[in-house]
């Protein structure tokens, strides 16, 4: 496996160091403990928003630190949750007296480490609320699993909650907006190839040349079922079916459609996916009024994509349109 790295041990530190230099106008970096904060943090009276998780999903989460989105991101080792101390330090660094929201993807390690950090922050006198993102409909039965995973819908939660915090909402209100986005977004993904964690050096699973994995998570963990490769339109239909069933969409609804690349799939293919997804939604009477296409929640070099559909209303649309200035999302400012 060929990778543009120096030493598997230094992958995260060197990437963050590069990010720090490239985006010095937007973020500051603490190297030990490792976390990234908005250059102007902490903002007095503004709710701080902290997210984080294993590295390897870039631009999630560091790429979303900045005006109108996250106040801090805590990168763990590749595909491994950060420990509680950097999460606590990031929480302290962005607390402007109005409390801090933790946005956590529903993976066991992330949930446990953020929970421990939130306990420590509370003991330190910081008010913390936590919203767990679990938008992945590929997980059928939450009763017999660790629950639905937090995947690409996380970007939408972070953008919209970030806008709510930026306009001055209090902690409960910002958490409420984050919960609202999470309750209205559904995602499902597909992998065409596995990915290789740098320190492991070999793929976490194998797929034959003509096989794809439907319902993939974002850590190279296998998904719902393995099938033979099909044309893009048929794959899109497989992904959209469970999404539309799960969240009762009605004719006349407005939606945000996110087609997210897993890291190794070119834009040209993502737009082929987007074309079909928009067509299916149109057939159902659902209007795509906002869209996002690109690599936003990746799984290293995995080829594949995920589709997220967020049911919009006027409030969510306005918050989506609000100005944002991060390295990965930037408009209106």
């Amino acid at each position: 496996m060929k990778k543009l790295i120096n030493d598997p041990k230094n992958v995260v530190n060197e990437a963050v160091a590069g990010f720090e230099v490239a985006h010095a106008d937007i973020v500051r970096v603490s190297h030990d403990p490792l976390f990234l904060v908005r250059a102007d943090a902490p903002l007095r009276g503004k709710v701080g928003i902290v997210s984080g998780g294993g590295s390897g999903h870039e631009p999630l989460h560091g790429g979303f630190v900045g005006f109108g989105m996250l106040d801090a991101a805590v990168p763990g080792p590749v595909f491994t949750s950060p420990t509680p101390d950097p999460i606590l330090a990031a929480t302290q660094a962005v607390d402007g007296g109005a409390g801090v929201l933790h946005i956590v993807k529903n993976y066991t390690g992330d949930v446990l480490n953020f929970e421990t950090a939130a306990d420590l922050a509370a003991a330190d006198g910081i008010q913390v609320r936590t919203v767990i993102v679990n938008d992945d409909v590929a997980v059928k039965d939450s009763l017999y699993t660790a629950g639905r995973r937090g995947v690409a819908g996380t970007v939408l939660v972070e953008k919209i909650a970030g806008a709510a915090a930026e306009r001055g909402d209090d902690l409960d209100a910002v958490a409420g907006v984050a919960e609202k986005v999470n309750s209205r977004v559904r995602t499902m993904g597909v992998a065409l190839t596995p990915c290789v964690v740098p320190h492991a050096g070999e793929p976490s699973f194998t797929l034959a040349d003509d096989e794809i994995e439907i319902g993939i998570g974002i850590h190279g963990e296998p998904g719902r079922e393995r099938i033979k490769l099909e044309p893009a339109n048929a794959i899109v239909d497989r992904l959209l079916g469970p999404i539309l069933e799960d969240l009762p969409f009605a004719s006349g609804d407005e939606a945000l459609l996110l087609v997210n690349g897993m890291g190794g799939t070119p834009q040209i293919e993502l737009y082929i996916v987007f074309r079909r997804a928009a067509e299916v939604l149109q057939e159902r009477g659902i209007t795509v009024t906002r869209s996002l296409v690109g690599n936003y929640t990746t799984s290293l070099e995995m080829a594949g994509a995920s589709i997220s559909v967020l049911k919009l209303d006027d409030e969510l649309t306005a918050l989506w349109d609000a100005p944002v200035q991060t390295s990965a999302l930037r408009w209106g400012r």
Partner: protein
Amino acid sequence: MTPNDEPGAVVGDAALANAALRLDTGWTIRWIRRCAEVLAANRATLNTLDRDIGDGDHGENMDRGFQAILPKLEELTDETTPGAVLKLVATTLISTVGGAAGPLYGTAFLKAAGAVGAAQSLDATALVALLTAARDGIVLRGKAVEGDKTMIDAWTPAVNAASAAHTAGSPVGTVLLAAADAAEHGAQATEPLVARKGRASYLGERAIGHRDPGSQSTSLLLRAAADLMSQR
């Protein structure tokens, strides 16, 4: 040739060692050092188990955590208690391991430390209390029950076996051995299970036939404790 070298004396020696076994601070430190050795030696094996049904880094993470403890053990003073050693292990694991294993094992050692308090040496009652508190701490954080294909499938049989051995009046070494044996069987017994917690739970029936890596690391930690007896 001393009388002790006669083949027939081996069992008697073990019994003698068992009876004389004191789980004091020195023992606790030796146990943790032995854990670090065993986890380093099993790093690749644990990674492979984790790659089959998880994300392939359990050996990596556990090895990093226990290696980080070693230099801190050197700094302990003579007045240290077994409980203080366990607490040091807990805080180090929480801040170095990451993933799910960090908070789970960290909480286990933290609760174990609380259970033994300021005791200078652990008798069989204290050992059972230590194991029970560790297991309860993991359940509190991870909310898994027996049969979910997690480390609890090694911990709960270990607690039950230790408790039964203690009730039967066995000395502390025998209690420890019973726990280690039960954890080992428990880890093996995760192989045919479908996972209901953690990342493996997303695999459904595809997790069948694979051993849970957390149950295996639990088995290794308890075996490391039991191994110290034969080393004496």
